[in-house]
């Protein structure tokens, strides 16, 4: 296929766009993890907050991704044209899977284990760090994995608001009605998604507790 010829000929630009793409996803994932996991833990403790937080995350997830990027352009501070808006949008998208898996992971820890932990005089903090988090780590990480794979796909749309990344080729290819150029963006993005899925899946299995 001539796509590969295209990729080889333009390898400098391909690497550049791939790096941009990865940077967008990596920053967004770090932010989403830093927000999503603690928030997921908080909602296991505060039932009143759960409806609001989960509801908000669900609503964000239903906004079409192209629209979400667009909405952010006029927003001051976090918005505008370029990578900042893209990172915010990707972070918001990644939040739900991480939040939901953190919540379910912790809620599904065997009640008998928690009961005994409490009965033996562990404080809530000790139960969280020594029991609940270790036992739900694989589930939490599965959330991070799903969020990462989704983000790598969604990040192609970032090119629409001038944030760069592999979407640049896709939009260019669409404009030129040239499948080869579209694929030059789509194939590397798909490869990245598969690599992320496999490596995070491997880490997840390492952490799973029988």
């Amino acid at each position, binding site marked *: 296929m001539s796509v590969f010829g295209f990729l080889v000929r333009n390898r400098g630009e391909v690497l550049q766009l791939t790096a941009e793409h990865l940077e967008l996803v990596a920053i967004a994932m770090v932010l989403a993890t830093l927000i999503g996991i603690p928030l997921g833990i908080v909602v296991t403790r505060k039932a009143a907050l759960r409806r609001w937080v989960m509801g908000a995350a669900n609503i964000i997830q239903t906004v079409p991704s192209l629209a979400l990027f667009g909405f952010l352009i006029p927003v001051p501070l976090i918005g505008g044209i370029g990578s900042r808006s893209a990172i915010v949008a990707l972070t918001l998208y990644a939040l739900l899977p991480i939040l939901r898996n953190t919540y379910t992971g912790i809620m599904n820890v065997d009640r*008998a284990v928690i009961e005994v*932990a409490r*009965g*033996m005089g562990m404080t809530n903090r000790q139960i969280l760090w020594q029991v609940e988090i270790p*036992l739900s780590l694989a589930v939490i990480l599965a959330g991070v994995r799903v969020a990462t794979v989704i983000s790598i796909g969604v990040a192609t749309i970032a090119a629409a608001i001038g944030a760069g990344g592999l979407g640049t080729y896709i939009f260019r290819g669409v404009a030129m009605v040239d499948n080869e150029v579209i694929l030059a963006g789509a194939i590397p993005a798909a490869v990245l998604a598969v690599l992320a899925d496999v490596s995070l899946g491997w880490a997840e299995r390492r952490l799973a507790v029988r």
Partner: protein
Amino acid sequence: MIEFRSVSYRLNGGRVLLADLNLQVRLGETLILLGRSGSGKTTTLKLINRLLEPSEGEVLVEGRATTAWDPIRLRRRIGYVIQEVGLFPHFTVERNVGLVPALEGWPLERIRARAREMLRLVDLDPEQFASRRPHELSGGQRQRVGVARALAADPPLLLMDEPFGALDPVTRAEMQRQFIQLREQLNKTIVFVTHDVREALLLGTRIALLSDGRLVGVYPPREFLSAPEPEVKTFVASMRDGGGA
């Protein structure tokens, strides 16, 4: 050692799980809480280590109301064993057994030594078992580790909630024998929940029978068989019919 003074426990919805319980547990005895499912045995047990707090009345442990104790300090003075065992699946056997000493901040070497000593006490070879994970043990072995864990910090008081309930009859009989031996060595005050009359008669120094959240009576095992209360008779009959296990 433990005293229940007019203790009632009600759920938020108002359902009464325990009504006006007056009961004393004496130093060094094994008090059995016997009753059917839903009679309030486990509730009674959880009121002792303040996993639950009384709706009315008070529970005194070593002369002080549980609500006046720091719950963490109170619970670390009380060993707790439940039917589901609740071993931490991500900890080795040794770390499970050494849990409370570790929480209490013992030095590492002393925790290890203590964990191994406890494993030997419950007849598990530390060389063979210390580094295993709970899922690599049989039900009986898991239950032994649970007992070793409860004893590790040498608590004066032990709460056991149907600890042998999930075991097959042969293993259970073995655990009961070992329980009696262990008790002679250790001199603990034990509160033991069961619905099995034979187990109650075998292990108890006294038997407190609960029915529908009320205390029917407290009997030494020998008097239990001839006690006149209908609920006692039902239990004794269930044993004679070959049930009750």
